[in-house]
């Protein structure tokens, strides 16, 4: 058995070396025309896909989740390491990344089975309440307490520091449904622990927008804006949230209509839906900003989660949708997380890793306390109380989006916030998937999804 594993490992390593060598060799060729430039982008895309897949296979032999392998491959190929994918190419393939995120969100929504969640409603609600209270409190306290120790504390005014602490505290509760879904898919996990974790993760991504809306209304006067402007901004975010959920519900019924009338090629249709949602939201947002002063963009992630949830729970096509999504999910996950890895800002991490580490630790402490307390209050098994926090470390997506909103109010604070958030995400995306996979294995739910 060990010999066989070693052979597989060597073979995977050789394949990886082969792909890298072939791509590196092709990069040395002189480029004379547009067709050759197009060929270069083709090679980058293919290398991202294949190397991410192979790296994940290699690391999985060490018990590391495949998603971490994809991210590591992206980091190595990215602009901060080997520069095989430079910033220019990264920008060009961003489109694929956004489409993939919408697709994964659809998958996450389709995985939320109301019947399974209803048995855990109390646990989920108490978890949400405790987490939105304790996690921001811990992070806020950590920033305020340690700020004098760092150079940026001297560069910022007391008000700016307060705003940074409040917003970082709120952003700390944001999760990464895409990462959670990728781990669940990879582990083929199924069971109450998995459903609770996914339910909390998705609900938290909705809650974080609501809380951020409130926080924006509070901090806007501190940043020199009027209170009215703050509430206006909050109202816009509210409309975005409600609009996204409503659009998602409509889309869900649209998917049902398609499934009822067309019996084949659903996977292609779902990819098209992911693409359409991503681009229509951006297009309408851009058009609205161009003609008015209102920055209102519907959130593709929420639209797709809502659509998936509606199809799963309000139509008879839930199981079919999940199966179709599962069938083509692998290339999507590999591309998405490899590109995400290449996009991770190592420069930001290098610039503020001590503070980022403080934030990661305080966030983890808040999660440990809140999940442990929620578990005891709802009489969950001791093992689950002890391990639940491990399923909530991953963080991405919405967190970055929220930092962009504050940039319109105060670019200086936003610059600090963005750098800090990116650094924290880089650390959490490294630790989170490993922790979640270990928790699923420890709870005995990995490999339980036999569909």
């Amino acid at each position: 058995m060990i010999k066989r594993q070693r052979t597989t490992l060597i073979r995977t390593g050789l394949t990886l070396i082969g792909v890298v060598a072939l791509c590196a060799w092709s990069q040395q060729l002189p480029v004379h025309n547009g067709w050759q430039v197009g060929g270069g982008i083709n090679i980058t895309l293919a290398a991202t896909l294949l190397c991410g897949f192979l790296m994940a296979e290699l690391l999985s032999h060490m018990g590391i989740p495949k998603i971490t392998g994809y991210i590591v491959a992206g980091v190595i190929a990215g602009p901060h390491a080997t520069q095989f994918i430079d910033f220019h190419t990264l920008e060009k393939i961003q489109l694929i990344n956004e489409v993939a995120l919408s697709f994964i969100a659809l998958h996450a929504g389709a995985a939320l089975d109301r019947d399974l969640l209803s048995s855990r409603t109390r646990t989920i609600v108490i978890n949400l309440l405790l987490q939105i209270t304790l996690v921001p409190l811990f992070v806020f306290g950590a920033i305020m307490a340690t700020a004098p120790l760092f150079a940026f504390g001297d560069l910022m005014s007391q008000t700016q520091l307060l705003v940074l602490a409040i917003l970082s505290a709120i952003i700390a509760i944001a999760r990464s449904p895409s990462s959670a879904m990728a781990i669940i898919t990879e582990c083929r996990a199924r069971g109450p622990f998995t459903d609770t974790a996914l339910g909390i993760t998705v609900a938290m991504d909705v809650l974080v927008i609501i809380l951020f809306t409130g926080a924006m209304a509070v901090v806007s006067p501190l940043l020199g804006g009027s209170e009215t402007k703050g509430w206006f901004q909050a109202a816009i975010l509210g409309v975005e949230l409600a609009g996204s959920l409503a659009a998602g519900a409509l889309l869900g019924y649209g998917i049902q209509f398609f499934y009822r009338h067309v019996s084949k090629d659903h996977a292609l249709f779902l990819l098209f839906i992911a693409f359409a949602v991503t681009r229509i939201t951006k297009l309408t947002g851009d058009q609205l900003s161009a003609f008015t002063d209102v920055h209102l963009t519907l959130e593709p992630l929420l639209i797709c989660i809502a659509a998936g949830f509606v199809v799963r729970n309000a139509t008879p096509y839930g199981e079919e949708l999940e199966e179709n999504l599962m069938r083509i999910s692998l290339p999507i996950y590999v591309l998405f997380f490899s590109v995400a890895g290449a996009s991770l800002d190592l420069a930001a991490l290098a610039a503020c890793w001590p503070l980022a580490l403080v934030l990661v630790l305080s966030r983890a402490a808040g999660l440990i306390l809140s999940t442990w307390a929620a578990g005891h209050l709802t009489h969950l098994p001791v093992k689950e109380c002890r391990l639940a926090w491990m399923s909530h470390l991953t963080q991405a997506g919405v967190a970055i989006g929220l930092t962009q909103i504050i940039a319109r109010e105060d670019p200086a604070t936003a610059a600090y916030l963005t750098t800090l958030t990116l650094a924290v995400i880089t650390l959490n995306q490294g630790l989170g998937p490993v922790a979640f996979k270990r928790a699923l294995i420890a709870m005995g739910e990995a490999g339980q999804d036999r569909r």
Partner: protein
Amino acid sequence: MPVFITLFTILCLALLGYHLVYRGHGRRFHLSGAAFLLVGYLLGPDLLSLLDETTTTHLYPLSGLVTGWIGLMYGLQIDLPFIKRLTAPLLVSASLDTGLTLLLFFMGTLTLFPALGPHYTPTLAFIISATAACSSQAALVMASPHLKPTPSAMALMRIATTGSLASLFIFALSFLFSGPTPSPDQLSMLTQSELPIILGTTMALVLLYTLFLSQRRSREELILIVTGMVVLTSGLAATHHFSPLLANATTGFFLGNTTRYRDRILSMVIILDKPLYLLLLILLGARVIPITGPLLLTIALYLFLRILAKMTGGLLISLFHTAPTLPRSAGIGFLEQGGLAMAICFDAQHTFPDATTHTVVTAILIATLISDLAGRLSWGGLIATPEKRP
């Protein structure tokens, strides 16, 4: 126009068209692909301008995937059992039909076509000849009652397939006369430098496929691997100023004959073949140029030469192909050109982009449509002949 709007519209229309044409009442016309070419023209710079020059440049990766996929599928089909089925009469028949077409078109391109416009180079002559030599074997299957080809239709299919493969070889020759950096001694450069690179890269790609597939893989993993490898092969071909179609076909050929993974890969390739083919038609349609006098004459000349070549070829074949006996009008069976001719056109447009290539490609596309529709209207007499099935 931003690339995402274009890509979105293309996908939307491709899906809509796919379900209307393949699943609706228009199913019987689906082989011509005319609807998708028209959609492409609608999106192109002459009308909606959604697929303008800049946007097309941004869609290079998609182009590489589309032609690469078709190339791989063709390459995989040329396996040893197929080669063994090519008996001497079949090979002579294919040589007669294809040889006549190639000869007529090569001479015509260098003598008659220049009267209609400038810059008809030997490269273009090879491209035009290659597209003219293509014949659709799928059309013959679709025309057969209950999709079961009769023995004569089967013989015609094999001749058509052999002819199409020869056209790929002719298309490869077009690269002999061109390159990103023109050289006075292109032939020696090809044999000493480019050919070893192409063969070496192909071997490396086959080795990579083998390494990937030597482990037991799930269906999802296979889709990922084949997609990644096709895009990689297309990218490598484009950076070497070579055709993604040919590069993938060559890889597919070696893969099908030197490894045991042919069936596994072919099954994956067939899954995505239809939607990608429709995308190819839309992208091709977008580059169609407006109808002008010289263009109409080019179409007429192309059609005339091709009908002449195919009908004469069919007549010659019928004289000595006795098992089974073929009718005198066997050439009708070769009139439909099919997807390979379009893929060659698409590749040529990217690799040799100039005004004459665009004119010629437009002429070939329109001629292909006319051939397909004409073939469909006239093949009844050829295929519907009562014949005992084996």
